[in-house]
């Protein structure tokens, strides 16, 4: 009996290891079939084979993504470092980009996470039901707005609007390095980028969190209320602990999006070398650097960009893994049982 046929017993929702009894059932029904006809038996094989190969294709694609990236990035790592990035070498090229990417992503999440949690709570536990439904729908729509549009909004509306604010920051808080002046006169700075990214990821985090908040068991909410909890205490006792793994994965989803976001950064940022001040032109992110330089790149500089893409890929992968690890660590006290 082939593996595919072995797995042809009827699907049960859970429990991987019920095969022994189910195999017997399938053999039995197969035997009964044989009495009348074998019609359709080949169809079973073909269909399960097709489904299986589709699954395997996905594995192949992902391996191919990694393989081609590594293959094409390889020359950038082994070539004499004097030939890369105007003689600075690959690591001198990539490290500032990594730092810029991380700064923008972290600031955007620091801004977006509390606001998103607030909005999600507003929709799930504060707003009247009608309003909440409409808001939920609007948030879902906003999550679907393409990033290039957020970028266009950032460059044409937000950046000029923030210029006076930056001037004020530079004059009154300029002694803090991140607000060091002179402030950009166009507003096309890393801080603007971070705010645009925050606006982009807020709908994403909000819509995931809202779903999870709404799934909080009524039982636990009522238990908290029956003990004389206020609404906020009920949220802290019942809703947030239940939703914690979901919140973490929502934030990680937002982080992944912010790390890999290309267009909003490429459009808004007036890029340059790594600097401490967030309100001057300068800094750059990996994704935006690839997008800006790819059309003209060839030869070794192309390999260099693909290597940068590989670094970004590894980075987002690491974020993913850390998120899973955090969630699995809280298993014992999760609401799973």
């Amino acid at each position, binding site marked *: 009996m082939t593996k595919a046929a072995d797995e042809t017993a*009827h699907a049960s929702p859970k429990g991987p290891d019920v095969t022994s009894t189910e195999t017997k059932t399938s053999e039995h029904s197969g035997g009964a079939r044989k009495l009348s006809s074998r019609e359709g038996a080949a169809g079973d094989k073909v269909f399960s084979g097709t489904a299986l190969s589709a699954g395997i294709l996905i594995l192949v694609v*992902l391996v191919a993504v990694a393989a*081609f*990236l590594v293959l094409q990035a390889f020359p950038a790592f082994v070539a004499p470092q004097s030939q890369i990035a105007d003689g600075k070498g690959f690591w001198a090229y990539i490290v500032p980009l990594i730092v810029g990417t991380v700064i923008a992503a972290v600031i955007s999440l620091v801004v977006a996470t509390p606001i998103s949690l607030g909005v999600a709570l507003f929709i799930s536990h504060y707003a009247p039901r009608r309003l909440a439904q409409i808001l939920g729908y609007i948030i879902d*729509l906003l999550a679907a707005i393409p990033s290039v549009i957020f970028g*266009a909004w950032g460059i044409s509306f937000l950046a000029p609007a923030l210029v006076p604010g930056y001037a004020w920051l530079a004059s009154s808080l300029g002694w803090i390095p991140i607000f060091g002046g002179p402030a950009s006169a166009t507003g096309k700075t890393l801080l603007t980028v971070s705010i645009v990214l925050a606006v982009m990821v807020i709908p994403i985090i909000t819509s995931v969190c809202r779903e999870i908040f709404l799934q909080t068991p009524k039982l636990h909410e009522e238990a908290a209320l029956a003990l004389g909890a206020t*609404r906020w205490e009920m949220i802290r006792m019942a809703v947030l602990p239940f939703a914690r793994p979901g919140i973490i994965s929502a934030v990680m989803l937002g982080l992944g999006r912010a790390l890999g976001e290309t267009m909003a950064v490429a459009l808004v940022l007036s890029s340059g070398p790594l600097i401490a001040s967030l309100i001057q032109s300068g800094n750059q992110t990996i994704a935006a650097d690839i997008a800006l330089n790819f059309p003209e790149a060839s030869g070794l500089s192309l390999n260099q960009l693909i290597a940068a893409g590989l670094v970004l890929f590894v980075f*987002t992968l690491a974020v993913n893994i850390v998120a899973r690890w955090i969630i699995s660590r809280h298993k014992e006290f999760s609401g799973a049982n």
Partner: protein
Amino acid sequence: MTAIATPRRRTSLTRNRLPRIAPWASLVVGLVVGAAVSTLVGFNVFGWGVFAAIAFTIVYVAWSAAVEGGRKARDKFATCLVIGSFIIVVLPLFSVIWTVLEGGIKGLLTPGFLGTSMNGVSGIQDNQSVNTGSRVVGGIYHALIGTLLITLWSTIISVPVGLLTSIYLVEYSRGGRLGQAITLFVDVMTGIPSIVAGLFAAALFATIFGPGTQTGFVAAVALTVLMIPVVVRSSEEMLRIVPNELREAAYALGVRKWRTILKVVVPTAISGIASGVTLAIARVIGETAPILLTAGFATKINLNVFSNWMASLPTYIYFQILNPTSPSNPDPSLQRAWGAALVLIIFVMILNLIARLVARIFAPKTGR
């Protein structure tokens, strides 16, 4: 305070309650204080709103803390924060939509905007239209065609692969090793940054067909990488909620498994699957970075995805803003960019709407 407001008996139940008008009174105080503070630093409506909100929160929470105690004050503070964050979020998001509408309607209503391409449009025409005030020429026809073709091809590839994979996961693998591996890989794929997907497609075709292979199909492959995990996830979820009784009923009638899946399981879940696919399309239709790396930059209509460069709406917007057709007079380019942005947003909204309607109207009568 309560005792004065309501001359009723004080009991342990009515002790320490703020009067009904407390929020409104605090709001008035907040607005006045906010106006005063914002006048000090230079009055504008935005500043007034911010200071008023802060003053309201302080007054209301402090009042509550004095009368009702810490627990109630914390509850009220949390309420203020939650509502405040909602207001904070509404402002930029409506600003985005407003900006697109404001900039886009003019571009969209320009005659020929939807029906012409950028072929032959150069800085000369744009300068002319700025100087003489004649209408802006050039449109998005080629980008529209490109977006539709590229999205169509990636849908043609992703949907069968994604659907079959989810069928494998739900109906055949049942938590086996391979199934777990696929689920993990799909998760990883969900997290691939879109530009990396573009790099992959570019690298793949460069390796096979030589460097510089940039066509609509390469872009479709890049989008496929982004689309498959979304399709697998949503279809898997929908297939899992098909009640097991339906499958068992079919098996009991002696129906073969593959027929059961095709005739019973998939049709039951079809509305959810269709709505998931629509949402996946909505997600990739606005992707810019992968197309930027894979389809090149075209100004002409190209109906063949297998050869030559191809334009798309997102990259059209990007190039019109970043490299205006006439660098000295960027306004016509901006007008076209906003027009294209409006069209793109309308596309996304319609797709979302369709997804919701499909999910609601064709929802299976069985199940939940």
